[in-house]
């Protein structure tokens, strides 16, 4: 399902300048397709009167836009201070040891991916994570593995 042009135009209209809607349109596209496709880059550029390389340059600055299709299940573990103090890195090591998938990697069958992220403003639940884009915590080794093996509830 590609970017819905009507929703996109409504977003553009909310800003004093069309280009301001760039991040919003990229979000809309990522929500529709799961990632920002090359087609999205073209469409968004055209909608906003930009070149594809303008869009690329902005896209590459922000870490949350995906440039490849997402895994079915996605675990993003916070590694900043409060979470690292409470064992985030031990969890990531455990996941790597048990599944062979380390931070920044995706299981060969595409069933799950593991990433590290910085402080999620959920330090009171450290170690915290985004599990399929939902904030959760405290995470532990068993919980992390269960989630990745599909025993952690349905992905959004």
């Amino acid at each position: 399902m590609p970017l819905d042009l009507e929703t996109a135009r409504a977003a553009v209209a909310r800003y004093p300048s069309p280009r301001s809607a760039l991040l919003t349109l990229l979000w809309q596209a990522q929500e529709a397709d799961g990632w920002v496709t090359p087609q999205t880059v073209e469409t968004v550029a055209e909608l906003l009167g930009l070149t594809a390389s303008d869009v690329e340059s902005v896209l590459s600055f922000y870490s949350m836009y995906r440039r490849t299709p997402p895994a079915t299940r996605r675990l993003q573990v916070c590694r900043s201070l409060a979470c690292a103090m409470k064992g985030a890195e031990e969890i990531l090591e455990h996941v790597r040891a048990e599944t062979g998938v380390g931070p920044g990697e995706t299981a060969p069958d595409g069933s799950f991916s593991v990433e590290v992220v910085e402080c999620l403003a959920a330090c009171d639940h450290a170690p915290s994570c985004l599990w399929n884009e939902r904030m959760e915590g405290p995470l532990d080794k068993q919980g992390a593995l269960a989630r990745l093996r599909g025993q952690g509830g349905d992905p959004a």
Partner: protein
Amino acid sequence: MIRKLLTEGMDTHDLTRLDVYRGRGGYAALAKALGGMSPEDVFNEVKTSNLRGRGGAGAGAAFKWSTLPNDGRPRYLILNGDESEPGSFSGRMLIERNPHRIIEGALLAAYACGMAKTFVYLRGEFYEGYAILKRAVEMARDAGLVGERILGSGFSHEIVVHRGAGAYICGEETAIMESLEGKRGHPRTKPPFPTAAGLYGMPTVINNVETIANLPGIVENGGAWFAAIGPEKSPGTKICSVSGRVRRPGNYEIEMGTPLRELIEEHAGGLEPGHELQFILPAGASSALIQPKDLDVSLDFDSMMAIRSMLGSAGMLVCDERDCPVHVAYLGARFYHHESCGKCTPCREGTGWTEKVLYRMEHGQGRPGDTERLEQLCQGIGGRKCLCLLGDFSVTYLQSALRAFRDAFVAHEHGSCPMARQEVAIR
């Protein structure tokens, strides 16, 4: 002392619902302002209140507003809900659980300053907060509280909820503006300051969401009422986010002037059983640490400055004897290196070197002279040499740790950690 002004009713009621928020007196301040106060009246109440910004530096809210030029150009209001400082999580709670308070505050600020539009900039990871705040704005619009001729008055105002996409630097006031203009989030040179030339080059005020959430109380009860709460120069309350080695991590709204000891020992339940306080980072990763001897400091902007630290966003990370100050420094350095936007050489190169030196110290490969090397790096990066304060932020904790725990750093030069930490670190 716990004093709930911004979080009042939040534990017992679903304030995200407009009827519930209104049933508890919500939007009464807006009705009061639009029903008989001029914009100047609202401005004057805020001035009398002495409200200071909750986003970091404690700038006077009314003072900032007063620097807007009077030249007829459109003015914009930006609410800073980027909240990416490790250790800070009070804004997320307000956004998710008291969104109408933020909307009402934004409307009051917009009315007082004659803003053309408000943008609320939320960090991208706030998926839930974004949905909640957007829904709250829609509910408010349906009830005539946002949009054209609000509450039947002559005042019209739009609020746009905008989402970032993963970049700590976008919390910096000028980077936010670049980001809102659909560009890479690189800070701008200052001056011009945002009130003179901000978003789209127009006069712009940027305030933290918690700063703004204070406005309904100030307008409803009067600036003098607010000014009388807590210390004269730092009035009001502050939501402190406590994390780390305490029994009850969480957000606690305290009256300004409350002793840090009370916050940690009573409200947050004290240290985890059997452990001892070693130091606290009181305003996230970028603040100078506080040692147990200073635990009786009062939580307000000026008292915290007086002990060479800061209140800032009050994201308090509590560390006990298990937490090696060198390890915490490494975690901070890794964060800042990752988040440096790369525009200024001291920040880009300096945070990289700092991380590298701390990485080897943390991994048993410290070299003689590394402690001094870190001290030199701090001098090279700090001192406001850069376009924005991220460079300075990256050395504030480190410098304080080098002062307070120099021996621990020196021990790491020889491959030993006084806290005998077992190292597992992911690059």
